[in-house]
């Protein structure tokens, strides 16, 4: 990633044989730089050159996959507005093996139930982190097995003891858990276990210098499926550490830190813990282990995660078809808006609050808001007229009134002419809909 065509060209054999499908080596280099081809297409490239190009073109932060679809890392920017953040923070809830079997079963059931629907999106919690606090390897293995049975979600298996991990991990290795944590004292045993079982492993050290040493020693064991923990447990120090790790990996291509990061909250009071986790969601943690599993606590955190990981260049859209709010009938009011999700759900929320069953038709504006769409010529009367026709609204209501957003009052004449419907100018802000609806 980030190599120019000329940098690639220097490593190529310069035979201009055309066997790769492009006429010259330079053209092939350009195609590679643009991501349009693979180096494998060239039969003459040397192994040394291949390695140089591969490592230079490897992503700055390795993607680590585990559990059921959890992807950590593989990020390329420090600020979301530079491109986007790709892989939403994996959030895991801690379960201790000192809890009773009943408590564990109840906790896992609660975790399984953490699924939410809001503004047309579905959020769910990613997984469970089983922690060995009992100091008993057999107990730990039994709890890991029980949790694996009780949930389909991703698992993290945490112990300071290599013995305990050896007892617990193999029985659930096919679930591909993330295991840890390997430290300077025990890394050989734990990293080798991870390698044998083909599962990713957390490397934990106290501070960045020690972490750098540990990564290099662990890499020397011939394994690279790592997740990093710089050991900090306060929000301020973790912010600093995560920023350093992300910057070094991306700006300096510093290979030892080219792995995703896991955060552990330190706050014992659940609401404080959610705020602490909010910091880690915004600032580069690929996974977070938290303690609270209360529904009302997780919704705000998962919402923040969804917001921060939204692609700034692709607005979220709703289907531009006729939507129904409540138990509609042939007298129900008919609103139009745009298919920008934020706009649509602001309108839908207020229409719902008015307690008057209504129809809402979001016009396809490529996910832009009312004024943006209007300014870009995507909210023209003829387009709206066509959408109204296609929606079949005429067969659903017996009145012929359409309510338009107040900001585009200027289109009402033309729209009335085109559709023959009476155009009613609604409030400018959706927050005015409730009082407006009462006057209908």
């Amino acid at each position, binding site marked *: 990633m980030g190599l120019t065509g000329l940098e690639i060209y220097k490593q190529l054999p310069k035979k201009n044989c055309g066997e790769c499908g492009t006429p010259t080596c330079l053209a092939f280099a350009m195609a590679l730089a643009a991501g349009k081809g693979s180096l494998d297409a060239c039969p003459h490239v040397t192994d040394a050159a291949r390695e140089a190009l591969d490592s230079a073109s490897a992503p700055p932060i390795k993607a680590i996959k585990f559990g059921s679809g959890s992807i950590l890392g593989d990020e390329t920017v420090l*600020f*979301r*507005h530079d491109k986007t953040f790709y892989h939403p923070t994996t959030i895991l809830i801690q379960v201790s093996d000192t809890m009773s079997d009943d408590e564990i079963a109840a906790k896992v059931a609660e975790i399984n139930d953490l*699924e*939410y*629907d*809001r*503004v047309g999106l579905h959020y769910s919690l990613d997984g469970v982190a089983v922690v060995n606090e009992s100091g008993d390897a057999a107990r730990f293995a039994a709890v890991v097995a029980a949790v694996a049975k009780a949930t389909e979600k991703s698992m993290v298996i945490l112990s300071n003891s290599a013995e305990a991990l050896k007892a617990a991990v193999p029985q659930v290795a096919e679930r591909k858990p993330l295991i840890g944590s390997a430290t300077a004292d025990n890394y050989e045993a734990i990293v080798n276990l991870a390698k044998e079982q083909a599962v990713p492993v957390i490397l934990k050290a106290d501070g*960045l*210098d020690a972490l*750098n*040493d540990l990564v*290099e020693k662990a890499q020397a064991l011939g394994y690279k499926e790592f997740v990093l923990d710089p050991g900090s447990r*306060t*929000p*301020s*120090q973790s*912010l*600093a550490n995560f*920023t*350093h790790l992300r*910057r*070094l990996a991306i*700006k*300096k291509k*510093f290979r030892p*830190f080219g792995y995703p990061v896991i955060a552990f909250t330190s706050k014992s009071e*659940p*609401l*404080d813990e*959610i*705020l*602490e986790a*909010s*910091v880690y969601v*915004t*600032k580069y943690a690929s996974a977070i282990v938290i303690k609270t599993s*209360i*529904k*009302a*606590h*997780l*919704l*705000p*955190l998962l*919402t*923040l995660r*969804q*917001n*921060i990981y*939204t692609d*700034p260049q692709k607005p979220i859209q709703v289907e531009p078809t006729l939507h129904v709010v409540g138990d509609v009938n042939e007298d129900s009011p008919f609103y139009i808006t745009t298919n920008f999700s*934020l706009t649509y*759900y*602001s309108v839908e*929320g207020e229409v719902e*609050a008015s307690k008057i069953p209504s129809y809402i038709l979001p016009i396809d504006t490529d996910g832009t808001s009312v004024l943006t769409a209007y300014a870009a010529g995507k909210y023209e009367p003829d387009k709206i007229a066509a959408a109204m026709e296609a929606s079949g609204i005429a067969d659903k209501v017996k009145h012929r009134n359409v309510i338009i957003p107040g900001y585009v009052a200027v289109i009402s004449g033309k729209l009335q002419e085109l559709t023959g419907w009476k155009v009613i100018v609604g409030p400018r802000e959706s*927050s005015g809909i409730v009082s407006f609806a009462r006057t209908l």
Partner: protein
Amino acid sequence: MPVTLVKEKYPSKVGEVVLGATAAEGGTRTSVIRVGGDGTLPFLQFEGSVENRPIIAMEVTDIVPPWNDTIKEQFGDVLGNPVAMAKKCVEEFGADAIYLKLIGADPEGENRSPEQCAQVVKDVLAAVGVPLIVVGCEDPEKDNEVMAAVAEAAAGENLLIGLAEQDNYKSITAAAMVHKHNVIARSPLDINICKQLNILINEMGLPLNKIVIDPMIGGLGFGIEYAYSIMERARLGALAGDKMLSMPMICTVGYEANRAKEANVGAGEFPGWGELQDRGILWEAVTAAALLQVGASILLMRNPASVRLVQRNIADMMEQNA
């Protein structure tokens, strides 16, 4: 092996704005507050100075506010009494400043006169010693009259007054200049309009260190990511030396977060979302916590329970990490 860390060197800083004035400076505040002044990204003390911690100004209204019951209950019988409400915010909830919202001026509502509004401001000034942030009722014409009266009545107090907007900034800027107050410049989630507005206000003669940016945030779940990125860009702009983006930022957290259905409807109506109590507190607190990470200097907040949480979060973030 020691790792060579990447530490950015920024050529410039966020501007510093002073709120309030003590008796020595011609006002009656018991202390002043400084906001902004940072020479680094939020809380990254390892590469620059974090001059002033972010502050929380709690919202006080001149009439009983249309808030939900879980918030109102925490205020008890002081609602509708701005003096008692302001005292409670400062003494009991630890507000750094008071955000006085004169919703009673609304021509569609109680339609209070500019003189009545100015009197409320004076009463609150007499009751508490912290700096005041004062805005009107969001009816532009009425607000121009109200804020002119307020600015005059509180001359010398060095208030932060709002709102100056792109198509309505002249009269409030003039009032702030004559009576020596600071101004909130509000732009609709647009960094270009934000910059342009600061230029227009500055061209009238108000110094840059008397302006605070209100980027019109979206609340959690309702566009917070737009505000998040705009604020992040503004902070990077300030550090890179863009003077017209280097003002401290103020965020209407209480208003935006509590507009969301998620902060208002009980578990009876939406069982999938869990109990309202904690959910409402967190909806406002998480909105604030996220915006702190992109450089919010003044948080305008409402729910006392959320304020307590965010106070602790700010204290945590201000811990040394160099």
